[in-house]
């Protein structure tokens, strides 16, 4: 992981990642969090020292195969209850701000 050692993360990358994560960062937050992430990533870089040739990755433990349930209808949360905690609803659905670019 040579690329990660030479440049763990910089301001531009932090802003890019924040955009991907839909997080708005304040100007005064950016240098602090960048410095913290640099330090954390420098620690994580030690993984590069571990030989993992031919080692299978572990995504999940204890679950040999995911079971499938019977394909029969069952009752889920009623619509009114599902909508009850929403900030804004209309016509039995969730209301969101406009998102289609003109």
């Amino acid at each position: 992981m040579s690329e990660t050692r030479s440049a763990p993360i910089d301001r531009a990358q932090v802003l890019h990642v924040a955009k991907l994560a839909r997080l708005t960062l304040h100007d005064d937050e950016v240098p602090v969090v960048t410095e913290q992430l640099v330090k954390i990533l420098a620690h994580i870089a030690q993984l590069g020292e571990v030989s993992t040739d031919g080692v299978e990755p572990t995504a999940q433990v204890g679950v040999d195969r995911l079971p499938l349930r019977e394909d029969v209808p069952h009752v889920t949360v009623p619509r009114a209850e599902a909508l009850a905690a929403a900030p804004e609803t209309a016509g039995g659905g969730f209301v969101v701000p406009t998102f289609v670019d003109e």
Partner: protein
Amino acid sequence: MELLDSSLLDAADAVRAGKISARELADAAIARIERDDTHAYLDFDPARTRAQAISVDEKRARGEALGPLAGVPIGLKDVLCTRDARTTCGSKILEGYRPPYDATAVAKLRAADAVFTGKLNMDEFAMGSSNENSAYGPVKNPWDKSRVPGGSSGGSAAAVSAGLALGTLGTDTGGSIRQPAALCGVVGLKPTYGRVSRYGLVAFASSLDQIGTFAADVRGAARLLEAIAGHDGHDATSVARPIDEYVGACGRDPKGLRLGVPAEYFEAGLEPEVKASIEAGLKAFEGLGCTLVPLQMPHTKHAVATYYVVATAECSSNLARFDGVRYGLRVDPGKDLEAMYGATRDRGFGAEVKRRILLGTYVLSAGYYDAYYTKAQKVRTLIRRDFEAAFAKCDAIVGPTSPSVAWPFGAKVADPLAMYLADVYTLPASLAGLPGISVPAAPSASGLPVGMQIVTPAWDEARMLTLAHAFEQVSPAKGKRPARS
């Protein structure tokens, strides 16, 4: 009230035998919680708790069979969904949120006739080791209120320690049950991954999260596990395996069991007072007829790095659901959807949650995925293999739960990495999906709690409880509690 200071099993027996009513127990708990100055509870409603207790008493009056936890006051970490109480996950983004259903573990406790005392404080979305990440202010350690209770289930540990509930549920992703149990001087049990349904547990890192139990003694934690364990059709990762008699496993003779002692758990970073306590504990195990087996677990030193890639990657995905659309906070600057997302998540999430989402998004992003995420998953395999090799030579692994005793508020806040390193002894078992328990060992010279961690192979909670119970009987911490109000 003395009964609230007795064991969970004694209280349950007293209710079932009709020696005390559920209402009396509930009132005792309510009175304690009203005087509480540890800030263990985020949601507390005496009327709701009393109503539940009264319905248990009415059930007995009608001659109906009572469940195994009838009338026992139980607190719930605020990351578990409850249909009759707010569920905030310690976050502003879910302030006031009321879920439409109960988590399976909560429903099972209801079915066992437990009485809920309320929702317990925690690090926001279970991310933290000190409770300082709660958006509603931290829990104080009942032993020394200038110190942290540990985290993330700090409220769950402190509530049991301070006698504000006879048992509590918490969750453990990287040590969030065991570490606060150690720092608050109570028993904290994390079951094998898959033992308890995660349905209704607000997800942080799905491949690691597991619900577990707290009590003042090992039998109490075992009784709670019996109540919540088992397969659930709502959680495909919950496993259909026989559930052992966990209370029955307490009291069996541990003689002849081989206990692995990893050298890596006693290296630099372990506070001398904790080390001395654990070494005395190891001698106590020998006195019980156990054999100590020195071990090497060479990948232990990579557990923190591995965990903070895997867990943050999963968290960045799981927390994408908090977007101001279906529940919780919405901040809408009136521009467009993206601006609403950004503003909502900026206002709703605290600094640690943001940091982890950023880190997780980064390690999953194009160009870095293999170098970080796939690499960490491979090292996770090597950490699992360390345990497989160890369990070829021993029946359980023992050592310190936390490298230090409870630290003063603020001591690690400015340095996230230092905070992460506090989880070094609990993370490996989490990554391997193994059961672990923390049991109070000899306190430090200054009187602060120390925890002995016991880890067994997957699905062997029974043997873990046998060892934990035997250790508890000879531990100098037995019966020790902080001053109670």
